[in-house]
């Protein structure tokens, strides 16, 4: 099953120094472990919210708001997409994640299985194409 692992931090925590070399190395080694175990599909580190933008939707109105976002209590720092046997395995991997600078949270959420969703009209489309095959009565 595919599982998304989100590294979550508190954007209002006391300003910390940029991550130490040690911390970066630990994170790099952890990512290497995931890759070496064959479970890592994709990963990415996100730049701080100050470099980001939010688009707020209200009806047909769209408002673009520059970061940082003072009202946000949580901030996604990075993500990893894993292929694991079950949630228990994802949890075990998440527990091995090095903590960058004090407290942090890792959230794990399984992805929806795309085959659960029928594209509207897909079955009809396929039946139509089959009927058009040459050699049919």
């Amino acid at each position: 099953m595919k599982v998304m692992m989100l590294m979550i931090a508190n954007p209002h925590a006391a300003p910390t120094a940029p991550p130490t070399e040690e911390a970066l190395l630990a994170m790099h080694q952890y990512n290497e472990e995931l890759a070496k175990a064959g479970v890592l599909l994709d990963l990415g580190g996100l730049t701080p919210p100050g470099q980001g933008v939010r688009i707020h939707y209200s009806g047909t109105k769209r408002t673009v708001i520059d970061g940082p976002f003072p009202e946000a209590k949580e901030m996604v720092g990075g993500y990893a997409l894993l292929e694991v046997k079950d949630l228990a395995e994802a949890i075990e991997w998440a527990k091995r994640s090095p903590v960058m600078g004090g407290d942090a949270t890792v959230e794990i959420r399984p992805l929806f299985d795309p085959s659960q969703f029928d594209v509207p009209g897909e079955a009809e489309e396929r039946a139509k194409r089959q009927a058009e095959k040459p050699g049919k009565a």
Partner: protein
Amino acid sequence: MTDPHAAIAAVFRIEFPRLVAGLARLTRDVGRAEELAQDALVVALERWPIDGVPDNPGAWLMTTAKRRAFDGMRHARIADAKHVQLAHDLDATSRDVAGALADALDDDVGDDLLRLVFTACHPVLPPEARVALTLRLVGGLTTSEIARAFVVPEPTIGQRIFRAKRTLAEAHVPFEVPRAGERAERLASVLEVIYLVFNEGHVATTGASWMRPELCNDALRIARVLAGLVPDEPEVHGLVALLELSASRLAARVARDGTPVLLADQDRSRWDRLLVRRGLAALARAEELVAARGGSAGPYQLQAMIAAHHARAATAEATEWPRIAALYTLLARCAPSPIVDLNLAVAVGMAFGPGAGLQLVDALVADGALATYHLLPAVRGDLLAKLGRGDEARAEFERAAELTRNERERAVLLARARDS
């Protein structure tokens, strides 16, 4: 939310291969290593529900297993030289458990895991034994998971694994990475095992469902692990590329009701673009390595290149069949087989018309090599249908339906026969 047993099982699944690998280096015996690993697991099952899962479960398991190995050696009544030497070595090691632990936890793990992979895939074992042993020791699957995957009774798998370990011991297969001269051939054996597992999940030969995606994921995971262990071998990346690209289409290969959907009819928006990207990246690595050596593409890379053509085609109509036919021709040269010839015939039929394809298929029929392979009459039926020869097509589809052992596939073939 999580059940403590599931948590422990997850740890085992992650740690088991490295545990066995490290113990195999110590004991020089893969069978004994597995027993020791199992024993450590049993102790863990007794202690962890009470004490909690340790912070470093891998180290805990290794220490526990090694302690049992030392005890076993001290109690050994057999005074043969090997055991005496081993006991001596282990005593020396036990004086520095911390050092031994460090050993097991750094890159020696990679080397040991590679030794384990080569040993489990040793050509002295029949293919199905290699598959079972590799899935157990390298994939970390339980015997019952393997049995379910291959639709075989659990005791059968148990016996297969038992006999495999015994064969390795009796043949005195050393626990090592093969030397340069043997490496290519031994690596080919490893790749073949992984490919067999993937293929079984990709088009399940028996049973009620047409695919077993779990098995594809198991194979993919082992392939990715291998690419990490042997990053300089182009065919390893070629195999990873082939598996990632093939897996990218899994969701599109079955309709909601479980009917197989052929490549030409698949909804390409259901192809997993992430896996396509990963597959193309692995293929690029293989191509770089081959170019750097001035060599030529091996069979897995060629198959991956064919899969890449499909992956890059936005629609079935956009597929570059002449290029695919050319690649199959190359494949037929470096890894000849009647199956490759059949695939070439399909590509030729698509590129140059069903008549051209039929000529090649008829040559295969005359040759007799694929007499019991259901896809030969299925392909022949498809070409005949395209040529408007409905009655002959129907006979071929009916023949194909008789030959397949997969129920879903039989249903599809019978439907095509009815519609001819």
